[in-house]
């Protein structure tokens, strides 16, 4: 308890990394509670799904009320969760810039250390994978490199086969993304671990030149070495025929991706996989 209080004091003294300004504690109704429980089940959701979830919660509990603006709705919930050091953070996926919302834990307390989702050696594996991802040039760590570190894990000895399964568990729980045998951080992990990464790896951490937040995957200028997120590149060089590096003004060598457009997404797929997964959950 003492340790928790000391850490809480430290947290409040440090510059706040919670989004949004200081807010007065809001009021939570059953609509908010249901929304929070559903978000807790999923962990991380894209903005479209979040809006649908919000509408669903209103329909279940309070058909007559007007659906509150999503941002205010979430700020309301966050103000109540502030004292528990939990927050719904908004971020974007690094590969195509979709806005996502994730429920993250903000503080290390004596209670949070007792989390039993993953065993000690599994958490250590995650930490090692995180380190490799941050150190890598592309933001991806190959599974062989991660598995080679299995001998150095703290806690119970883990076999390579088990380690592969643990990595798959991380992918299923949306902490890591796997692409062609390489692993990188899911946006959920980036939102939750950003502070931790900045504090623990201050020299190895990469920052996006445009949005100044943590960068795992992105494009970098070959001459001056600055980096930018793919969606940040898309927005910055939008409708610019001759993209030039903002720092050294050299010709930008990489392909400029498209800006994410939610309208186009909605047209593209009416029966997306995410819709099905929402319905199959117990509401």
């Amino acid at each position, binding site marked *: 308890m003492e340790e928790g209080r000391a850490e809480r004091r430290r947290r409040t003294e440090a510059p706040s990394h919670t989004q949004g300004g200081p807010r007065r504690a809001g009021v939570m109704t059953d609509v908010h509670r249901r929304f929070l429980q559903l978000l807790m089940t999923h962990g991380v959701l894209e903005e479209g799904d979040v809006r649908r979830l919000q509408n669903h919660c209103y329909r279940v509990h309070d058909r007559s009320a007007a659906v509150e603006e999503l941002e205010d709705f979430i700020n309301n919930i966050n103000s109540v969760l502030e004292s528990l050091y939990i927050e719904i953070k908004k971020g974007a996926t690094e590969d195509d810039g979709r806005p996502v919302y994730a*429920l993250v834990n903000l*503080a290390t307390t004596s209670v949070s250390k007792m989390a039993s*989702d993953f065993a000690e050696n599994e*958490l250590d594996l995650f930490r090692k994978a995180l380190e490799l991802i941050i150190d890598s040039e592309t933001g991806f760590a190959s599974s062989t490199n991660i598995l080679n570190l299995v*001998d150095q894990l703290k806690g119970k000895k883990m076999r*390579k086969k088990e380690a592969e399964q643990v990595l798959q568990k991380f992918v299923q729980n949306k902490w890591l993304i796997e692409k062609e045998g390489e692993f990188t951080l899911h946006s959920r992990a980036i939102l939750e671990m950003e502070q931790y990464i900045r504090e623990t790896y201050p020299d190895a951490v990469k920052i996006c030149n445009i949005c100044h937040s943590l960068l795992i995957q992105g494009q970098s200028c070959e001459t001056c070495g600055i980096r930018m997120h793919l969606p940040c590149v898309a927005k910055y060089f939008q409708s610019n025929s001759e993209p030039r590096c903002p720092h050294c003004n050299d010709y930008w060598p990489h392909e400029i991706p498209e800006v994410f457009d939610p309208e186009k997404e909605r047209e593209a797929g009416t029966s997306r996989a995410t819709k099905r997964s929402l319905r199959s959950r*117990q509401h």
Partner: protein
Amino acid sequence: MKVGVALGAGGCSDDLSYGEASIDPSLLGLAGDEEKCRKIRKKYRQLIYNVQQNRDDLVNTVSDSLTLALEEADVLFDGVSRTREAALDAQFLVLASDLGKEKAKQLNCDMSFFNQVAFCDFLFIFVGLNWMEEEHEELSGFDDNIVLSFWDTVQKEASSWILQAETFHFIFGSFKSKPAPRPRLEHLKKALKMEENGDMPAKLRKLDLSNNQETTEKEVERILGLLQTYFQKYPDTPVSYFEFVIDPNSFSRTVENIFYVSFIIRDGF
């Protein structure tokens, strides 16, 4: 009383080489006992016979005839002083305890009656799968779809009984110890990691004293050492697995090599 004993002793003295009138008192005691013991043995045998004859009765009816038999044996046992009778007593006890066990088993059945086969039938009916009697044997030959629909139905019903909200899942804050501060690292080339990890596991193996498969370990170590030397000499060429393990002159050596190399592969060096 004494006359009778003397007569008895006289009867016995034919077997013994004593021709004297004076009789050993312990022998007198023994003779009287002999009669008693014979009686006890007869009674035991009768008891055992009775119990065996009425076995069904004793087990199935709600009577305390078994208790009565046990009490009788208890009384008889008071007179027992020699092993022959004690052996009969033991035999009777074994019989009685067997009967007691059967009685107890019957009792349990009546109290909690769970018929597994009937339950399974009801379960299938609940899920909506109609079974013909003959199909009971072919459980294994079924589609995944039927299996999935079975579990879906069970889940729908069960989840309404188990109302439990999801807990909050997070990773930040669950690390028990702070990571050690890293020394400033230069940009590392991500080459094949075999060489770097080679030293540490070899050291660990040497410290492993409780390992009693010493020859296997030594061989694996030796082969690991060979691989490492090869890689030090030719850093970027991969080794052909077949060239490495096959011994053209000896099949058994080849098998051994494959065995040792499999350890290295399993541990990921």
